[in-house]
């Protein structure tokens, strides 16, 4: 089975069927571009992958883990869905940066908010260990309170040890997140904009920050929803450059785009969607230069006409 496998995805809004059984498979490190005219369902597909919409039918498996399966009776809790969401990063067409935070805080906010949750998980683990050890000591017949305390301390399992461990974990995570943030800033080439607010940046810079923000949660698959559509033409280049550098790193990515030239060069695979189904898919060069279906031919000639105008 492929690294990412979507099977038979259906989605309707009211009476309108937007996705009518879409299959996607993607290997690790591959870049998939999804093209198609507006209303073809490509954005909805991306939103289903990112848990912004719930598919009506179908399933998604990533790296051997089933992320959703509509045929299953069991419903995920909000917390489970949140955890699964973190497998994917999403870069929006309209950036959606948080306007009240600096560039750096935009990037580090989400991982920072996860610290408390992770600390709670760790604390629960340690408490469980502590309880197990106490039970063991009791079984061995150690009754004296002082002796129990000494033996627990040897295992670093007293209440104080646990508190210290959690504090240490939190400090370490904060430092890691800050380091990651700096690295991401360097990657998108905006180190000098560290403390700027989104309103002080150009569209291209904002989108680069949005990419860094999506990367900060360390997603397995990074998704782009028409990342350059809201940009002035002269600003698309800088964003595409960042995406290309991510491909060179070997990131698994799904890009919904209208930039045919870019899709052709950066993707390992292109998927052409029309009317809620995958009309054609395959090798980028072959697909764009030798389209088989009439719909793709029409779509491509339409796009190139627009580019010439």
């Amino acid at each position, binding site marked *: 089975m492929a690294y990412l496998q979507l099977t038979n995805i259906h989605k309707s809004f009211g009476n309108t069927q937007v996705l009518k059984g879409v299959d996607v498979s993607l290997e690790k490190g591959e870049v998939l571009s999804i093209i198609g005219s507006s209303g073809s369902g490509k954005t909805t597909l991306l939103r289903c992958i990112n848990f912004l919409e719930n598919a009506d039918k179908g399933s998604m498996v990533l790296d051997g883990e089933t992320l959703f399966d509509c045929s299953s009776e069991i419903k995920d809790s909000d917390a489970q869905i*949140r955890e699964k969401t973190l497998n994917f990063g999403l870069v929006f067409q*309209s950036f959606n940066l948080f306007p009240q935070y600096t560039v750096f805080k935009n990037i580090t906010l*989400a991982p920072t*908010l996860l610290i408390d949750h992770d600390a709670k998980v760790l604390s629960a683990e340690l408490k469980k260990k502590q309880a197990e050890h106490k039970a063991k000591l009791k079984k061995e017949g150690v009754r004296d309170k002082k002796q129990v305390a000494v033996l627990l301390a040897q295992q670093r399992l007293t209440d104080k040890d646990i508190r210290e461990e959690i504090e240490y974990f939190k400090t370490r995570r904060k430092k890691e997140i800050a380091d990651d943030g700096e690295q991401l800033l360097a990657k998108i080439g905006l180190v000098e904009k560290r403390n700027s607010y989104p309103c002080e940046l150009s569209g291209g810079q904002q989108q680069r920050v949005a990419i860094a923000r999506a990367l900060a949660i360390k997603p397995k698959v990074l998704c782009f929803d028409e990342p350059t559509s809201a940009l002035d033409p002269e600003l698309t280049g800088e964003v595409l450059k960042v995406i290309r550098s991510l491909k060179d790193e070997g990131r698994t990515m799904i890009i919904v785009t209208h930039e045919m030239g870019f899709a052709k060069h950066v993707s390992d695979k292109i998927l052409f969607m029309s009317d809620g189904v995958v009309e054609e898919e395959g090798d980028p060069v072959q697909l764009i230069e030798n389209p088989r279906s009439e719909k793709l031919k029409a779509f491509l000639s339409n796009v190139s006409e627009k580019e010439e105008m």
Partner: protein
Amino acid sequence: MNQFLNVTQSLLEGFGVTCLLFVLTLVFSIPLGLLISFLTMSKIKPIKYIFKVIVWIVRGVPLMLQLFIVFYLPGMLSETGLNPFGQLDNFLYFEYGIDNGGRFIATLIAFSLNYACYFSEIFRGGIESIPKGQTEAGKVLGMTKGQIFFKVILMQVVKRIIPPMSNEIITLVKDTALARVIGVIEIIKVADMFAANALIWPLFYSGVFYLIFVGVLTLLFGFIEKKLSYYKV
């Protein structure tokens, strides 16, 4: 001169009650307003409509009438026929030497409810005006609903609602004068008591207190707006 100082001192005492009513009304009505705004945006239809009707009633009936209702209705409905706020008046007077405490509490209840309903509509407008993309960005980053509201949405809402809120809050300063209809001795009531003794000018003089108070508030809101001008929503 002596008379002027005398009047000023009495008015200041009344103004103290005015300020207390103002501050406590804000303290209660802002959180309550936020709660009501959530309830009027609830996905559960009955809750949503019940609270929409409540907001309609509270905004649709004169505040003065609401004061009368809050103050008199509980007494009329009680088996003994005694006004609980009147009893509270007596209790607070004999136990703590506080005058008109029960009436004050009745006023506070009516004001808090009334302003909460107005605020709730401002909050709702503010919350609904924040682009959906902000919530979605929070969701794909794995944030909880609470985190999305408090870390992402709230500060943007605050910035947007400061102008309408400052309007409403300034209106509240002056609405406190209504409390006198159920016998709370706020500044206008004090001035009116002078007027009853043929001394009219304290009534006009009391306006100066309101002007200064509203002036300070205007400066404060201007300051907050400026503080928040570092980002655009």
